[in-house]
């Protein structure tokens, strides 16, 4: 056990799995960096340094830099997975899915079904998401509702360093295509993380706290925000259960429903766009399956239906905050 950042936890998960299993390879733009360039060889480790140090240990044959051709190399990861490797491919920002989505949603996701159960495609696509970096509309999206919509994909949204390590190791060992979403603002957040490898199963939500009055379901970076909101509400005598589903597909429906059955109230917090988003998905689940338990309307806390703006003041107003979450809880308590 030692303090590790979210970035380090991910890096360690990759390194440990690569040591364990020679079929695990890593690829992406500048994942080592410096390919063909006169300076350092392991120059980058991806644009935010997450894969740094892997190439010196595992070599260029297992840590591959790529040209900027996401269709070709994400597709190559898919094809390699279907033929015997366990590639972990980095789609730098999830916002870039538009240039390679076919290989993910029509190929990787559907092979097993279309081929009558005969294909196994253990590919992991690591990708950065989320607002807060002043990176504007094309580098700040969440987009995991799109992956969640697609049958055949698994979708993982780790909320902390501990979660990231265990979920990434699980992702690599999993035999289905997995989209692993890393919130760029969390990379430097630090917590105690075991040094040895461990897995966190998919589809098992984590109750980060338990309370009596309201169930808050939150994802990724929003889990921390929900807990901050719950801290503040506690002083007002409102206690909350905060559910981190960890994976949006599979989704731990039972834990969510059970919690709402206990509290009778639901607030869903998500940083993704609201329409056909995760907040709606979870709200609908509860409205269909735990309606009788509900004492108040469900409340969703999401950004507005707008692209992510650049100016810091606007971006801060865009992202859900602990204050907005607390307000929503107060609203369902009223």
């Amino acid at each position, binding site marked *: 056990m030692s303090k590790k950042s979210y970035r380090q936890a991910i890096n360690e998960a990759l390194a440990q799995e690569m040591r364990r299993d020679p079929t695990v390879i890593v690829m992406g733009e500048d994942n080592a960096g410096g390919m063909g360039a006169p300076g350092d060889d392991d120059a980058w480790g991806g644009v935010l340094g997450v894969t740094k140090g892997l190439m010196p240990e595992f070599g260029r044959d297992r840590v591959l830099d790529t040209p900027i*051709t996401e269709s070709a190399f994400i*597709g190559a990861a*898919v094809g390699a997975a*279907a033929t015997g*490797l366990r590639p972990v491919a980095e789609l730098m920002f999830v916002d870039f899915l538009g240039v390679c989505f076919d290989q993910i949603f029509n190929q990787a996701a559907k092979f097993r079904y279309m081929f*009558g159960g*005969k294909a196994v495609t253990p590919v992991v696509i690591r990708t950065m998401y989320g607002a807060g970096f002043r990176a504007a509309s094309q580098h700040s999206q969440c987009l995991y509702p799109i992956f969640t919509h697609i*049958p055949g994909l698994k979708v993982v949204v780790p909320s902390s360093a501990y979660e990231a390590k265990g979920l990434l190791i699980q992702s690599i060992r*999993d035999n289905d295509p997995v989209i692993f979403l890393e919130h760029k603002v969390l990379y430097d957040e630090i917590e105690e993380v075991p040094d040895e490898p461990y897995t966190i199963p998919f589809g098992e939500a984590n109750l980060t706290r338990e309370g009596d009055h309201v169930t808050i379901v939150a994802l990724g970076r929003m889990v921390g925000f929900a807990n901050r909101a719950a801290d503040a509400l506690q002083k007002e005598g409102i206690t909350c259960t905060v559910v981190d589903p960890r994976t949006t597909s599979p989704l731990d429906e039972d834990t969510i429903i059970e919690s709402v059955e206990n509290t009778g109230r639901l607030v869903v917090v998500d940083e993704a766009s609201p329409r056909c988003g995760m907040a709606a998905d979870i709200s609908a689940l509860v409205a269909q399956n735990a309606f009788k338990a509900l004492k108040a309307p469900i409340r969703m806390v999401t950004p507005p239906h707008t692209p992510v703006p650049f100016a810091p003041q606007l971006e801060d107003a865009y992202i859900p905050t602990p204050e907005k979450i607390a307000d929503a809880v107060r609203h369902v308590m009223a």
Partner: protein
Amino acid sequence: MQLNREELLQSYRTMCTIREFEERVHSEFSEGGIPGFVHLYAGEEASAVGVCSHLDDRDNIASTHRGHGHCIAKGCDVNGMMAEIFGRGDGLCGGKGGSMHIADLSKGMMGANGIVGGGPPLICGAALTAKTLKTGGVAVAFVGDGASNQGTTLESYNLAKVWNLPAIFVVEDNGYAESTASVWAVAGDQSKRAAAFGMPSYELDGNDFFAIHQAAGEAVERARGGGGPSLIHVKLTRYFGHFEGDAMTYRQAGEIEVARRERDPLRFFRQRVTEAGVLEAHQLDEIESEVKRLIDQSVVLSKAAPPPTPERLLTDVYVSY
């Protein structure tokens, strides 16, 4: 690359199987027994067989919407294929894929593909597996003239070269992408495209099995030896519409008849081997009759087979969920 008698007979048998399969699917489709979109490969047999006769189970291919020929050439079970096309539970994909999604990964057949340009990136991946695990395998993407413009295909040329992959791209240029002529839609030319990405290439008559076999042999040898990717451009004719039901008004009247009469790859093969005295006509005739029986039987079996059981709707989405 010399072929012995056994190999020649085998190649002819495979080409005949494709031809007969497609002719039969054509007639069964028009009788209404086959659901969905079906794209037939008849007329293009020399390409699939000329290339795939160099491949074994280490090697992978990715195909297109026009995939039956590639499947047969790569060794997929013909009964399983026919049953799949009929949507039967014992089809090669359990009836869940149909004509556009026939695959058999155990044979290195990574799937027909409903997405134009879907295959080349996958083939980079299969080639990467071969290279990484040092299996000695190669990977082949078949693409149409239409697919040769798709960004996914062009990117794959670059990636295959940059990563020095044992990959081969076969551009099957049948002159049309749906109703649009390749002379219009393909700017420049295929060999120059290969050269632009640093790949050696071949321009071939797609009716000439021997030319294709020769070039593919070189390309496969180069790939297996670590020499990187190649491109093979073959010009050929599809004997049916883009899909079954296509009235083909965009084609020249008599275009197919002329091609069938003058450039049929099967007839071309027969002529070459009999004229050279390597095989005798009756040997080839026997193959044709055998193949006919085989395909007849596959249709009989498929028609008799039951559809998938209803619970199969929900299976095979994930390995575990």
